[in-house]
């Protein structure tokens, strides 16, 4: 029996080899804005742990390199990811001198490279396993639970990002709430407005091109410019419309951020509604009319169910886009995770930037996995056309 190499595995193994042997595993800094000193795996970890990690990485790297069953690849990648996650926490505690609350330890390039490589290996293995949508959501739940467990047990308490979190625990959750409210709220508004608008565009000839062109133009306005453009009209509304100021409409703050995200969300929702409705088979529409469905019955019983997966794809695009875009709401005082990102940039404290960026990326990723699975389920419900 000859061992055959896996194409993607070669890349993964090369990245892991470089990350483990040549790149630093962790960075140590005397305080949060000092420049760091790089530490390799064996320097960063207590002796036994460093050897163990190298051993696990070697086994997992080999499992990826040669052709192995998908379940073995998944198991190896998962084991490597767990080892990396747990031991970076151990490294943080090991490198921080006893009682020193100024020193900062953060993951370095080697850690990130290996994390990327094994995440890629795990994703590839999951794809090869062709999991059902529900199983994919289950896998996501396991990952979330594992991270929550590590956080709850304090496994990462020594890491710089969690030291930043500890200093800002209250405002972190307040900003998280604002971030999610902004992203989901503007999405909800875009659905409420965009789907009827899409239906209208579908039914009324001539309206479609006009509406889609305007929305296309809105998409091209840079977000900062859009904030600027919104200050005047929203300020005017706050002054002149009774009750507007009371519900929080102002030229700066959450209102313009919400409106901007809403405007950016409209194009994908409207366009996908139009495309979805346009894709409904002519014969099905004709039969629906011929059998005596009213326009409303035809819309809700035939057109929407058949267009649903496409509309949902639009909603997925918007949700992932909004979770990312909400980061810049801070520019106009709208809050959200962007607060930490921009404070961090201002203070050249990369740990603080990560405190804003990591949850944003994690949220967007989770939203994408969940909605992709939902879309697949919706397509099955449509009649199983795979």
């Amino acid at each position: 029996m000859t061992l055959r190499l896996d194409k993607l595995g070669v890349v993964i193994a090369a990245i892991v080899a470089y990350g483990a042997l040549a790149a630093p595993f962790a960075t140590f800094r005397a305080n949060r804005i000092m420049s760091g000193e790089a530490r390799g795996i064996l320097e960063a970890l207590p002796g036994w742990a460093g050897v163990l990690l190298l051993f696990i990485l070697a086994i997992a790297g080999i499992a990826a390199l040669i052709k192995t069953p998908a379940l073995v690849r998944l198991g190896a990648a998962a084991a490597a990811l767990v080892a990396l996650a747990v031991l970076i926490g151990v490294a943080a505690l090991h490198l921080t001198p006893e009682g020193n609350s100024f020193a900062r330890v953060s993951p370095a390039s080697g850690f990130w490279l290996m994390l990327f490589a094994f995440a890629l290996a795990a994703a590839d293995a999951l794809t090869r396993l062709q999991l059902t949508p529900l199983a994919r959501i289950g896998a996501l739940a396991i990952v979330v639970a594992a991270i929550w467990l590590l956080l709850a047990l304090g496994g990462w308490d020594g890491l710089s990002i969690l030291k930043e979190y500890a200093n800002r625990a209250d405002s972190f959750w307040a900003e998280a709430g604002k971030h999610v409210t902004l992203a989901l709220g503007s999405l909800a508004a875009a659905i409420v407005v965009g789907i009827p608008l899409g239906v209208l565009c579908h039914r009324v000839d001539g309206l479609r091109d006009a509406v889609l062109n305007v929305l296309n133009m809105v998409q091209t306005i840079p977000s900062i410019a859009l904030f600027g453009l919104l200050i005047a009209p929203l300020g005017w509304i706050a002054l002149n419309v009774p009750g507007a100021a009371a519900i929080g409409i102002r030229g700066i703050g959450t209102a313009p951020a919400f409106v901007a995200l809403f405007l950016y969300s409209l194009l994908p929702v409207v366009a996908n509604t139009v495309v979805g409705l346009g894709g409904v088979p002519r014969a099905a529409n004709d039969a629906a009319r011929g059998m005596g469905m009213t326009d409303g019955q035809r819309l809700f019983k035939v057109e929407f169910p058949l267009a649903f997966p496409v509309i949902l794809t639009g909603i997925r695009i918007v949700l992932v886009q909004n979770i990312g875009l909400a980061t810049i709401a801070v520019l106009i005082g709208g809050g959200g995770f962007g607060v930490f990102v921009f404070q961090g940039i201002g203070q050249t404290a990369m740990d603080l930037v990560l405190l804003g960026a990591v949850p944003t990326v994690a949220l967007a990723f989770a939203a994408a996995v969940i909605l992709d699975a939902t879309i697949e389920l919706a397509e099955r419900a449509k009649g199983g056309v795979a």
Partner: protein
Amino acid sequence: MIEIENLTKRYADTAVVDNVSLTIEPRTVAAIVGTSGSGKTTLLRMINRLVEPTSGIVKLDGVDNRALPGHELRRSIGYAIQGHGLFPHRTVAENIATVPALLGWDKARISARVDELLTLFQLDPADFGPRYPHELSGGQQQRVGVARALAAEPNVLLMDEPFGALDPIIRAKAQEDLLAIQKRFGTTIILVTHDMEEAIHLGDKIAVMDAGKLVQYAAPAEILARPATEFVETLIGTGERPFKLLSLEAVSEAVEPGRAQGEAIPATATQRDALAELLWSGRQALPVKGEDGADLGKVTVKGLVKRAARPA
């Protein structure tokens, strides 16, 4: 009874249907034949008001079809189209239940009717009811499409090229099934087709449309014997005419007294089938047997050839 009076449909300056009048007797099959663009589908769609006429009246059993709102009218008229138009997101049973559900029938009545229709169309309700349309063959989809059109027991069934997407063998079977069901329910059927053969086979009367105008409306034998215009003649295909004429009548009409040798032909077969068998086997006469196997007499080449000649 369906009375169409001076029906016209114009789009801009073109009359797609131009001043058409015809009456369709209850419990009969009327076939509307024409080339594409002749206005036959538009004429059909004005009966259930999928298309509103520019002028003219359609009366169903004496009542103007504008007496009810369009969607309510359409619930009382069966509608089956080419490519069946089944809803891909609904099961076969749900598809068939569409109109009864719109009419607010109770669940027990709907499911009894669905089972009855599936059985009638030779589809096992337990097996086919829960399937989705894409899990059926073309012929099965077509049968479900017709079953769906008949679900609410309509007196009138409109069909737009219902067999257009089927291969010849399944098509012949579907045509026989349709005739059997028409006899059983006494449904008045108006069927649009571009195929004269199909029209002759299925129609009690044939309406020939050309460029929006009704050029002839008559029984198949009449159309074959006396085509009103050259266009009708072309549609029939003059080379096929005698054989089409023979295909209209059963062997039982052509039986002569006497005996013949060889294998018998059933009295229910068409005279065209009998002539084909005679020519193919090189005989001059065939024995004819009844359904009970009794000897009824014979058919002869001479007799059939006489019958295939242009009627006086």
